[in-house]
C-alpha cells in the first residue's frame, strides 16, 4: 500500500492505514471489512502467521481457446502477474493452537475468484488431503462463481468438489466453510454452502444469483440488506456471522468441539 492514508469504502472516512491494518483490515469507525489477499488472511489465522503452501504447480490451460474482448490465456498471464498466485485459490497447511489444519483461501483479485478447472482441482485436492491425513479443513470463499472462460468444465467442478465433501462427511472430518464478501454463483451452490458449519464475515454479499440479475428478472429494487450475511443468518443459511478479529478463536473452538479436544 502506498501513502499513509486511505478512504473507507463504506463510511467514506479518511483513515490512517496503520489503524486499519492493526484492526484486521476492518474500518475502526464503521466495521467495514476490507477484502484481504490470501496472504493477509492466512496471517490472521495460523499460529505465528506460519504456513506451508500446497499444490502450487497447477496452471490453467485455456482448454476452450476462449476469447472475448481479450484472450483468456492473456488474462491468465496478467492475473498471475498481478496477484503472484497461479490461480484463484491458495492451498495451505499449518497449525492453529497447535492443531494441524488445512486452509484453502480464494483470491478475489484473480478473475473475481472464479472457479475453473484449477480452482476445482485444488479445492478437491485440499479436501482429499484432509480426508487422507485426517485433518480438519477450512475453506474461505470469495468468488463471483464459476469461470465462464472454461465453460462447462467449470460447472462440473461443483460436482467434483461436492463429491469430495460427501467423502469427508463419511470419514467424520470437520469442514468449516467461511464465506466472505462476495461469495456467489457456483461456489455458493457447491462447497461454500456445504460446511459442517457455515459462517460469514459481517455484511458479506452471499447468494446464488447476483443482485443485478435478480433486479433485471423481477424488475424491482432489492430490499436493503438483501443477500448480506445477516440476512442469510436470519434465513437459516448460516450458523453465525463472525467478526474478522474473532474468526481464528471461533474456528479453533469449533474444531476442538468437533474433535473432542478440550484445552
Amino acid at each position, binding site marked *: 500500500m502506498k501513502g499513509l492514508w486511505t478512504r473507507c469504502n463504506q463510511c467514506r472516512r479518511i483513515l490512517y492505514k496503520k489503524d486499519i491494518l492493526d484492526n484486521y483490515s476492518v474500518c475502526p469507525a464503521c466495521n467495514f471489512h476490507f477484502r484481504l489477499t490470501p496472504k493477509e488472511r492466512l496471517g490472521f489465522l495460523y499460529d505465528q502467521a506460519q504456513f506451508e503452501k500446497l499444490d502450487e*504447480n*497447477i*496452471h*490453467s*490451460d485455456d*482448454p*476452450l481457446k*476462449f*476469447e*472475448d*474482448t481479450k484472450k483468456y490465456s492473456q488474462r491468465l498471464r496478467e492475473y498471475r502477474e498481478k496477484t503472484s498466485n497461479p490461480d484463484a485459490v491458495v492451498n495451505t497447511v499449518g497449525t492453529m493452537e497447535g492443531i494441524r489444519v488445512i486452509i484453502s483461501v480464494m483470491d478475489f483479485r484473480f478473475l473475481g475468484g472464479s472457479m475453473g*478447472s*484449477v480452482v*476445482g*482441482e485444488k479445492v*478437491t485436492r485440499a479436501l482429499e488431503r484432509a480426508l487422507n491425513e485426517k485433518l480438519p479443513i477450512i475453506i474461505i470463499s470469495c468468488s463471483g462463481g*464459476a*469461470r*465462464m*472462460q*472454461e*465453460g*462447462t*468444465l*467449470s*460447472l*462440473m*467442478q*461443483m*460436482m*467434483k468438489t*461436492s*463429491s469430495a*465433501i*460427501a467423502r469427508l462427511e*463419511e470419514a467424520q472430518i470437520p469442514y468449516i466453510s467461511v464465506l466472505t464478501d462476495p461469495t456467489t454463483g*457456483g461456489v*455458493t*451452490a*457447491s*462447497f*461454500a*454452502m*456445504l460446511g459442517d458449519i457455515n459462517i460469514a464475515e459481517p455484511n458479506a454479499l*452471499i*447468494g*446464488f*444469483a*447476483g443482485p443485478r*440479475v*435478480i433486479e433485471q*428478472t*423481477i424488475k424491482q429494487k*432489492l*430490499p436493503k440488506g*438483501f*443477500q448480506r450475511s445477516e440476512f442469510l443468518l436470519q*434465513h*437459516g*443459511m448460516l450458523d453465525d456471522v463472525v467478526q474478522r478479529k474473532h474468526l481464528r478463536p471461533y474456528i479453533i473452538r469449533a474444531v476442538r468441539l468437533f474433535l473432542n479436544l478440550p484445552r
Partner: protein
Amino acid sequence: MSEEKSFHELEKNIIQAKEEIEALRFSDDPEDQTKVSQLKEKITQEWKKIRPYLNPYHIVQMARHPQRPYTLDYISFLFHDFIELHGDRRSADDAAIVAGFAFYRKKSIALVGHQKGRRTRERLNRNFAQPNPEGYRKALRVMKLAEKFGVPLVTFIDTPGAYPGIRAEEKGQAEAIAYNIKEISRIKVPVVNVVIGEGGSGGALGIGVGDAILMLENSFYSVISPEGCAAILWKDQGAVSEAAENLKFLAKDLLDLGIIDEIIPEPPGGAHVDYEQTFANTEKVLNQTLQNLESLSPEKRLEKRYQKFRKIGVFTEK
C-alpha cells in the same frame, strides 16, 4: 446462406413439410402414404442443405424450440403407469420440476425432470422451467425414495437456469443445489441424466449429474447462457453468437472434453420434427446405459461416479 438468419427462418420448408405429414397422419389412402414418404424425403434433403450452416447459436435455438419434446412427453412415451409426486415436505410444490415413479421395461424406475409449459398459462405456472429451492428439494426427496426401493433414477435436463428471485434466495437456492449434488454423488442406485434441451448452469446441475450424462444431439449444457455471457464478458448483446461459439457447450464439444458419455442422435430437422424417432433413439441409448450400470455393484458404481467427476478439468502441472 447467411449466418444472420434465425433457426426458425432456416427451418421454414421443413416445418411446412412436417405439417403436411401431420395432416395426412390418419389417412388410409395408399396415395397419401406415398406422399408422406415423399415429404419425409423432402425433410431429409432440406436438412442436409441446412445442417452445415448451423452455428452453435442456431443449436441453442433448436434446444429452446417451442415445439421440442419436453420431459413429460418423454415420460408419457417411454414409460408407463407414471405417478407424479408433489411437494418438498417443507414448504411448497414446484411445478418447474416433475418427479415420480413409473415402469420401464417391466421394472420400476424413478423419474425427475425440468418441465417447460406449452401455452402461456402453463409456461407461467411452470415458471419457464426455472426451479425454486423447493423444486430441488422435491427432486432429492424422490431420488432418496429411489435409493430406498433400489430402483434406478433417470433425470431429464431442460432449464434456462435456477430462478433468480427474492424468495429463491431467502429459501436457499444455492444450498438446495449444493446439497443435491453432494447427495447425488452417493446415491446407491444407477443415476442417468438426459439433457433434452437447455442445460442451464447450476439450475441444470442440481438434478443433472450422475453415473452417465447423455445428450440429445441438438441440446446444450453450459455454465451460463450465451446471452448472459455476452452481456458480462462482451458487454454487448450483439455478441450472443460469438459467446455461444466460445463456450463450447454442444454435445460434441462436451463428449470431447470427457464431460458427457454419449450423444443421442436426433432425426432430420431436429427432435421437434419427429417425436417418435427422437423417443426411439433415446430409448435405445438409455436402455443400453441402464443395463451397463446395473451390471455393476453399487460400490463399483459409486467409485466410478466419483472418478468420473474427479477427472473432469483441464490443467497442466509442472
